[in-house]
């Protein structure tokens, strides 16, 4: 059985996932990810699907959530501040650095490149998308509009 684990630095929040990640492992260069992580980007391994409520578990404390946009919440450890997850209606993304084995999840794309820090040069040939051209963002924006409207 698949078992993917991760945690925060202090060990208060642990997560365990018993399904495979989506194909998407993405750098997100958006300004919100930069601010939230204090870094140059977020890098997210995503877990979605109909069974996500059963397959994604926090096994100790729950993270604290901050709603950074209408459709997305960011979960972090309230004790040590480690950013751990984003969640929306489809599932979770976990920060790649919080995984116990980040080396096993090489990224597959760059998103939000309209706000990429100009001096950051990552040497790869991965696809690069602006937020407005990102299929997942377009789908979420449409669903949000439909709900609102």
């Amino acid at each position, binding site marked *: 059985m698949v078992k993917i684990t991760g945690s925060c630095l202090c060990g208060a929040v642990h997560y365990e996932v018993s399904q495979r990640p989506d194909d998407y492992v993405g750098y997100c260069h958006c300004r919100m990810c930069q601010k939230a992580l204090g870094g140059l980007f977020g890098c997210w391994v995503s877990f979605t699907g109909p069974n996500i409520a059963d397959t994604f578990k926090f096994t100790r404390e729950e993270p604290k959530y901050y709603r950074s946009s209408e459709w997305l919440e960011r979960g972090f450890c309230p004790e040590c501040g480690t950013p751990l997850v984003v969640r929306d209606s489809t599932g979770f993304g976990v920060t790649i650095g919080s995984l116990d084995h980040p080396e096993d999840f090489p990224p597959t794309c760059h998103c939000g490149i309209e706000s990429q*820090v100009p001096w950051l040069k990552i040497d790869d040939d991965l696809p690069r998308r602006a937020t407005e051209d990102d299929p997942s963002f377009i789908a979420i924006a449409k669903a949000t509009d439909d709900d609102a409207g």
Partner: protein
Amino acid sequence: MSEKFVPVTGGCLCHAVRYEADVNLCEAFYCHCKTCQKTSGAPAEVGVMVKPGTLKFTKEDPKFFQSSPIGSRGFCQHCGSRLTWISPDKADWTVVWAGSLDHPERVVPTEHLCVESQLPWYAVANALPRMRSEDYAELKKAWASAGLTHEGKPL
């Protein structure tokens, strides 16, 4: 000698914590250590050195978590944004994280630290000088002051 520190501002995502500091924008560093990976949730940190005594929080203070005997990490308790690393005496060694700055595009990284734990797929700025933890004199000195090796073992 020209002054290498310049005034900057930064803060968290929800604006509860804001700071002002004089920082060295032109000698920032990638830190690839395991603790930075875990606590940042990212493949590496980019740290910007602060001139001693100049970091001031102008709204709320961050919450601090002591991540090792040689440093504490400050984050916003409301939104979780990560902001700073401060050594115990809060004077001689203070860092703000590049992404917390209002203008991270002004930062110029010039070296890689703790490269023994660099993630194999994170190929970034490969031309910059690279240092392993055991060759990093300032880090070893800080750990030695706590009676420990740079791996956290008794001296």
